[in-house]
């Protein structure tokens, strides 16, 4: 009977441990309270066939994802964090990484203006005027970047602008592994 009185403090100890663990995970960057895991990890990328930003270009379709390891970046000219991460994409492109772009709900002139100002790292760009393709990819925050393997499967998603640490700690090692 005496042991029943220990229940509250034991319960508190458990709770405290979980909280402490979680705080530590958040502080170290291992866990993030607002980032959501993608529902499409290890699944084939959704089927799509997007037109180019301007008439006469090539566009971007899901078939192009097969056969090579690539990044797919969802961006828009009206999205300030996209501007912030763009130099990193340029750097990746220069280093030989294949990057595809999905231009989300943008005006053609403004999207092209963005690329003219900041450079074009994309091997191909599709214009998602309605936003439906982004929904198919499970996009909810802009920008987002996906890593797609040779078989056209999504292997990783990053929400928000890319930073140096994200590249060195997660994306570049993953790309290297997938290329083997």
């Amino acid at each position, binding site marked *: *009977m*005496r042991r029943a*009185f*220990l229940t*509250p*403090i034991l319960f*508190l*100890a458990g*709770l*405290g441990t*979980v*909280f*402490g*663990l*979680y*705080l530590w*995970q*958040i*502080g170290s960057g291992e*866990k993030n*309270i*607002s980032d*959501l*895991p993608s529902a499409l990890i290890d699944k084939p990328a959704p089927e799509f066939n997007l037109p180019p930003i301007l008439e006469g270009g090539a566009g971007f379709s899901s078939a192009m994802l097969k056969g090579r390891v690539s990044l797919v970046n969802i961006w828009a000219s009206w999205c300030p964090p996209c501007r912030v991460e763009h130099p990193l994409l340029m750097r990746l492109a220069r280093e030989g990484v294949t990057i595809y772009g999905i231009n989300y709900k943008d005006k053609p002139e403004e999207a092209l203006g963005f690329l003219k100002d900041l450079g074009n790292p994309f091997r191909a760009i599709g214009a998602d005027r309605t936003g439906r393709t982004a929904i198919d990819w499970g996009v909810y925050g802009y920008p987002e970047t996906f890593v797609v393997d040779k078989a056209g499967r999504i292997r990783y998603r990053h929400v928000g602008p890319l930073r140096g640490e994200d590249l060195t700690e997660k994306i570049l090692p993953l790309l290297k592994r997938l290329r083997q």
Partner: protein
Amino acid sequence: MIAEAGQFALILAFVIALVQGTIPLAGAAKNNSRLMALAGTSAAVQFLCVLASFGCLMHAFIVSDFSVSNVAQNSHTLKPMLYKISGVWGNHEGSMLLWVTILALFGMAVAAFGNNLPDSLRARVLAIQGLIGAAFIAFILFTSNPFLRLDPAPLQGNGLNPILQDPGLAFHPPFLYLGYVGFSMAFSFAVAALIEGRVDPAWARWVRPWTLAAWCALTAGIALGSWWAYYELGWGGWWFWDPVENASFIPWLVGTALLHSAIVVEKRDALKSWTILLAILAFSMSLLGTFLVRSGVLTSVHAFATDPERGVFILALFLAVTGGALTLYAIRAPSLKGGGLFAPISREGALVLNNLLLTTGAAVVLLGTLYPLILDAVGGGKVSVGAPFFNATFVPLMVPALLACTVGAMLSWKRADLAGVLGRLKAAALAALFVVLLIVWRKGTGDVLAALALGVAAWLIVGSAVEIAERIALFRGPLTQSLSRAAGLPRAAWGMAVAHGALGILVIGITASSAWRVEMIQLMKPGETVSAGGYTLTFSGAVPIKGPNYEGIQGQFTVTRDGNEVTVLRPEKRRYPAEGDSTTEAGILTTIGGDLYAVLGDPSENEAWSTRIYFNPLVAWIWAGALFMALGGMISLTDRRLRVGAPKRASKHAVASAE
């Protein structure tokens, strides 16, 4: 200068709180009355220092002293004075200072009005309160100092989030904090009793006024917050099971259970260790809530801007305070002698049932709130627990509690005649049945759940009336005799009847506004009309408007009923340039029968605007019910029996006038 004085006062308060927290404890152990008396003096001085510090911060906000970093981050010269003042607690640092001010206030109040307490208990209670105060002042000084300076001082501040620029900010946090910081007093009493090794009816009587005052304030605070969300956020929602809302609701549930179980300790000297545990848990849940809201482990519209360093400090505080108390509980509580025996069917039994359901309810809300966090921490992925979970699990628990409420109030102590009581409640049962049938007849069988809910409300309201009628022998003797009995009834009896009846009003408000809400969404051109709830609204277009620190658009709806103009509703969309944010203000007509609620949407072609008109039947009954519950509690507080040397409700008024 003044900011430095504020910081100095806070440091002084910290030192005094440490003294208050240690020396009287030694004095109580050695039975040294001089050392014990130090508790009262230091509690009073600590309060004055903390209050002075709070005053200094408020001064900085009032004069817009942007050299103080906290003011620069959260204020602006164009803000109306009301929001300059209430903006003091519209941010993390300032609200923590309000927190410790109220903590010290309760300490001072017990020091000033707790002369009927035995010296050793008083010394220990104030000492525990002092220790908690010291810990939180340290938290402020080391991680959340509101008096930090900026050099060079900016010419203008960042302003206050426009949603917070509302009278609701002036009242909701102070009442809320009076409530769940006020539970610290019950906590201190419980720990002091464990140290003394004695819990008796006298203890229950001494702790009751403080717990009741805090509970009333918390009830009012939660109700104000809910009402504020309703009229401010623009779609008529008033409870979202948001983690921060839950963080205030869980202490309320535990506090309500505590109030009820303390009655058993007082009257029958039983349920002692359980009541002590509840007193510890009520404040612990407040601390847990503080942790959740300020540590960054949860996402919520209410959460303050935070960083993990603060989170670790608060977690340490929470574990130290709660852990210390629960360890003491594990050691000392088993030796608390059990008291009066009672049969399961008795008033004590009903109060035990109340406790079972309320604490289970609190545990369920806690489970739903913490589950996503716990699952993510242990690597189980992310899961979202929203309103549907809580509605499915919490509401069914409350239904038997509401039903038992009326019955329990009439059961006798030790061993009761349930059949007899149910027989005496025939009127209430008939009223409930009548209401159910009436609703089903008028609204159809699709609304059976609403009908049942309203039946429960009728059971509560009529039941409370029946209980009073019985006690004053209404209709059983001459009316004058009943009246004199009514005058002689202890206030606590009236308080209980009012509070339980108010629950019924609350249930009516929730049921009617959820079940029979009318929503009209359409495009309207000037001159077009829409009808809802018996009212006709004629749209007359939208015009630009300008306020002290905002500009925007105002739509105008002329409201008529039976051809007579009732009012003009003016929903707005505002933009606050200083903060770079926008808000929507709904146009609301509040009547006893329901609220007419108009929202201006986006413009469309041809001068048409998207508009939303709602009619929320009886929605104001929700907050009226909650406020009447608080009123019932306050009536109980004025009970003569509690005033045998017991403290008055001065605490609440003191803070209200400090603003």
